[in-house]
């Protein structure tokens, strides 16, 4: 999943990057703590709501969502077939839902039972992955790489160059993606059909892109480095940030809400198993 920042005039975009980072970390921590699918679904809905406010380009996540549905199905089946849950909420976790090898196949007895407990646990695992990916994507779409640099660079003892290198690498990803598409188009224009042939043949065709992509990326990186050098990058130990971050009321509200809810959820989970399966 490659997330490219999209500048939009939304409340989430305007939030202090540190607050967005805290929100993302809180979501991840709560999703890790909770194991009940209903609680996780509620958390997922809250993340979607946050994404709606951020005008997240959902269409761009279609591909990864389709892939994740397949992964989720596999997780549910594997967990259902192999995992036994000590549930505090499920009435009969050992009840068999269905068999992976069904009984209606002539001459075959039903084999590999999928049980309620394991299956529900699989749903919870899948939801966790969905929530984490979604939170990271919303954060990425709504937080510019330069904002991330500023967040990283303001961490004590980390030189600002480290943050800058990270953000440049981040910005480089879509550039390389465009290059890759162009290289594939150039191949197609010369009769290469990436969809045809056996798997090894297709791998061979695709690998032909790697060398020019690598060579072009190196050339581009070299020119960028030259341009950065010509603008005194690394000249001074001090880098002046031109975005003075001051926390607005909205920032404080989101920060307090994120931390408050996350702490409460985790404490309740630990003390009274609220959110456990």
């Amino acid at each position, binding site marked *: 999943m490659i997330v490219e920042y999209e500048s939009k005039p939304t409340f989430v975009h305007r939030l202090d990057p540190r607050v967005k980072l805290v929100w993302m970390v809180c979501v991840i921590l709560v999703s890790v703590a909770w194991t009940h699918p209903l609680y996780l679904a509620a958390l997922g809905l809250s993340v979607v709501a946050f994404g709606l406010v951020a005008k997240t380009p959902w269409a761009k996540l279609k591909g990864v969502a389709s892939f994740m549905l397949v992964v989720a199905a596999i997780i549910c089946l594997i967990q259902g077939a192999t995992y036994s849950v000590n549930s505090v909420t499920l009435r009969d976790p050992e009840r068999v839902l269905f068999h992976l090898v069904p009984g209606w196949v002539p001459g075959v007895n039903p084999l590999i039972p999928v049980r309620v407990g394991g299956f529900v646990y699989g749903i919870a695992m899948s939801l966790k992955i969905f929530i984490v990916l979604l939170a990271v994507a919303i954060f990425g779409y709504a937080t510019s790489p330069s904002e991330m640099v500023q967040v990283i660079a303001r961490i004590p003892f980390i030189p600002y160059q480290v943050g800058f290198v990270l953000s440049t690498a981040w910005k480089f990803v879509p550039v390389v993606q465009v290059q890759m598409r162009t290289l594939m188009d150039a191949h197609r224009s010369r009769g290469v059909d990436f969809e045809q042939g056996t798997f090894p043949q297709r791998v061979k065709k695709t690998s032909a892109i790697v060398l020019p992509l690598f060579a*072009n990326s190196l050339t581009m990186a070299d020119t960028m480095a030259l341009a950065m050098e010509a603008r005194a990058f690394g000249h001074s130990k001090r880098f*002046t940030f031109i975005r003075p971050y001051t926390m607005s009321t909205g920032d404080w509200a989101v920060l307090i809400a994120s931390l408050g809810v996350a702490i409460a959820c985790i404490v309740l989970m630990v003390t009274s198993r609220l959110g456990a399966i």
Partner: protein
Amino acid sequence: MATEIISLKDVSFTYKGSKRKALNGISMSVLEGECVAVLGPTGSGKSTLACIMNGTVPCFVEGELAGDVTVDGLHPREAGTAHMASRVGLVFGDPDTQLFGMTVEEDVAFGPANLGLSYEEIMRRVTRCINDMRLTGLEKRAPHRLSGGQKQATAIAGVYAMLPKIMVLDEPTSMLDPEGKAKVFSIVRALKEELGVTVILIEQEVDDIISLADRVFVMSAGSFALSGTPAEVFSEPEKLRKAGVRVPHVVEFGQLIGASSVPFSTEDVIQTIETGTWSMAAPPRDPVAGQPVGAVSEAGIEPARSASDPDPLPDPAVGEPVIEVKDLHFQYPSGAKALDGVYLTIRRGEFVAIVGQNGAGKTTLTRHLNGLLRPTSGEIRVLGRPTEGVPTTELCAHVGYVFQNPDEQLFCTTVAEELGFGPANLGVAPKIISARVEALLSDIGLAKYSDVWPKYLSKGERQRLALAAVVAMDPEVLIVDEPTTGLDWLESRQILDYLERLWRQQGKTIIIITHDMNIVSLYARRVVVMANGKVVGDGTPQQVFSQPELMAVACLRRPAIAEITDALWGEVLLTPAAAAARLYQRTSSHAEVDQS
């Protein structure tokens, strides 16, 4: 009296691992506040010269430097690039590789922020530079959402924000459309005239330089082949041609008509004609081919069109439609509308130039013709057959597509393999492939490099190879996207001459996308003008260049000679030779009338 700010004494440089000297014993002296233009073909050492001035050569790019370099009282090699950055600003040709901020404001602040200046000082500089570079109102815009000219203006502002005394601009307009070029040249003029900055301008655009530079240096093979004031340098057109530099139309026309002084602008030429300070005793001779230009037809376009080919074959006959585009609409997944109802028919044997500013839809349109893009709505037919459902891998046998950047279409490990790659994918027999490869190697002048990795070739050679690699598939229609970007005039002519040979001798239908109106006037027989995703003009070069409003809508500039002849006689001629012949014809007929 101005003081010397740059001094190079007997400077030579050899890149690490190379045997050839990139700079070979050059000396130059630049005074504070001067605007110095450096011309020359690619590979002549211009960029190396630029990089020596701020120390990137040899501090960043290794090699052996000899001689003495002093810039603003410092030796760049010892001072280091980062230290020199506040004295010498270096701007490169590709703006995309030199913009680092998420907004224009952030990018302009990047240099001063690296110097550790205070927030207040940085913002003061940012405001000033954005204003000086005419970027006001774009402060919060993301650089990738700017036009080419605005991007380059941002790059210049970012360098200028470090308040260097010297600005070195290395082909800053090479990637830009005519409007972008005009913007950059207006900024360079402001740097020189309003801000008093010393400017070293490395360029291929001679038409603009001639009235901008105080002095001109012409480089060839690491040395200065010519130097002096523009008047001195441009009064030696033969030496300029020999060095691989295009002679500006105004100068060439002045030479052909025997102007008493070298004209530098269209106004100079018009004044020369009107005051009669010229003398042309005989019909003008084409300065390149050395052939008499001949009579000008009523249409006034034919003579001297193919100066490089003294005895060209006649234009191929135009036949049945090979490309038909009907009501084509295209919207990118992001929602951006790129084509908005395009109608276009291209017939067999045409040589078409598609022109228009960046973002007009030229590339989007042509990528539909071999199926790389599929219409949102509308119909495309290739050789009478709808392209719907036909894959690119099949269409490419009929419509060859050459991309703008050769490095994005060369994949093989040798030149010969590269040429055989396409035909092999189409299932052409090995014997035929070998014959084609051999013929093409000779056609594009790369026979001696057949076993070389394409990456080791020069940009012009790589561009020729990329073109030939598509020609090897023997398509009926050849689409070439910006074939001359980043090339010098000689290399550009080599590419276009090759295309012209394919058109005349093999009857290929040629479609080029270009911003270079000089190329259009020399080679194209039909010009399709695009703006805002639509075809807004279509006709011969003369018809198109005769419509200033159309050129303005498409943000294009017609060639200088077209401006001159339109102003003088109300007709558009495409080459200085044709214009000189027209002048001779008009004067002779006037003389005959007077005698009778």
